[in-house]
């Protein structure tokens, strides 16, 4: 099988900012997009203002602008992470049932979520480690995982301890089944699915090296 996969083995893995920029490039112009709390919010900084992408925040707003600072801080205007934000011209506010109807009803084009684990067939685990001491908190993760037309994951490919996060089957409690369309990581971009994982590009490693470290089959 000949490889058309860009293997950028001689450069370092992507930084968080580079990864955010990489994901931003794949978000189609004119999309309605929800960026999950935490690192996915950084994608907003890399979206072209000309692309006409409208950001949705689950707490009831379309047309969310950048984080608010100084005098622009209004405690009645926050994002899903409770960070003060701003509104853009054309913004709209709505209540929670409508906000989640936008997700569940399939009106939202793209969401980008963080993850603890993604399985080779696209199961997502990102809300609970299952640790008996942990307090479970799901927020809107399950609604997004099921509802957005395209669910993208932004994560590191390995934990700090070196454990793979792209796994044959999730060991953490699931957020959603077979819902992840694409996984963007510091070491590569992957498409899970019923036929296993397709690798689209790699950073700082070859496909063969990643296959070895992950212990899962990677199709080109």
């Amino acid at each position, binding site marked *: 099988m000949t490889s058309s996969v860009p293997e950028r083995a001689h450069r370092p893995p992507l930084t968080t900012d580079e990864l955010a920029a990489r994901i931003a490039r794949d978000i189609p112009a004119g999309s309605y997009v929800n960026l999950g709390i935490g690192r996915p919010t950084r994608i907003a900084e890399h979206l072209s203002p000309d692309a006409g992408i409208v950001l949705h*925040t*689950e*707490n*009831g*707003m379309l047309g969310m602008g950048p984080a608010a600072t100084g005098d622009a*801080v*209004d*405690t*009645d*205007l*926050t994002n899903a992470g*409770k960070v*003060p934000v701003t*509104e853009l011209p054309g913004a709209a*506010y*709505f*209540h*929670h*049932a409508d*906000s*989640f*109807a936008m*997700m*569940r009803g399939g009106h939202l084009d793209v969401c980008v979520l963080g993850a603890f684990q993604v399985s080779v067939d696209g*199961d997502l685990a990102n809300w*609970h480690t299952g640790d008996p*001491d*942990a*307090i*479970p*908190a*799901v*927020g*809107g*993760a*399950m*609604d997004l995982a*099921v*509802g957005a037309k395209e669910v993208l994951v932004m994560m590191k490919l390995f934990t700090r301890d070196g454990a793979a996060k792209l796994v044959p089957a999730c060991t953490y*409690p*699931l*957020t*959603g*089944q077979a819902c992840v369309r694409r996984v963007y990581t510091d070491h590569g971009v992957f498409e899970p699915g019923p036929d296993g994982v397709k690798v689209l590009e790699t950073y700082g490693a070859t496909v063969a090296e990643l296959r070895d470290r992950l212990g899962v089959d990677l199709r080109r």
Partner: protein
Amino acid sequence: MTTTIAATTDEAVAGVEDGSTVLVGGFGLAGMPFDLIDALIRQGARDLTVVSNNAGNGDVGLAALLKAGRVRKVICSFPRQSDSYVFDELYRAGRVELEVVPQGTLAERMRAGGAGIGGFYSPVGVGTPLAAGKETREIDGRTYVLEFPITGDVALISAHRADTLGNLVYRKTARNFGPVMATAAATVVAQVTEIVEPGTIDPETVVTPGIFVDRLVRAEARRLTVEGARR
């Protein structure tokens, strides 16, 4: 019945009974009915089941109600946050029960409760621990889980403006759960920063019609930041 206007927050929360289910508006601090909760603490009802998105932030609002030991159970989507230390301690000590519900399911269960719907099938949570033990049904090739409505004995919400008939307008993302909770409780109490005469609010902009609101009380907006919520 038409809306009554309470002179004080204490009057606004009078009559809440022990063991009540209380819907509490807000997403974090935005839209949190701080003054109504403080009045509820003074009122003294205990053994409460609280339905809210979070389980308190800092030491104020819902966190203060929890700290006062009045809450038996919290039904919410996202209890654990960097400033949910009051809840965390109670939960770890086994002094409060927790039911975690996906955020949209929480909203829709209250919407159903307020709209007279006996239950609904949702695709959210299928195959996860939060759907464990629930009835599922396949509809057009997709699996759904049966969710039941949530109603409250009381809803405490915060809005921006009201007219004397109880028509409510909210402000920015502080709207969040307010309009849904306003439909779903036997007694709905709203704190607002301003109460105006009928006709002052453009009817086209009313978000919660007064039919859903039982009691109104005026209270200053408390615009707390995350840092400001810590005592």
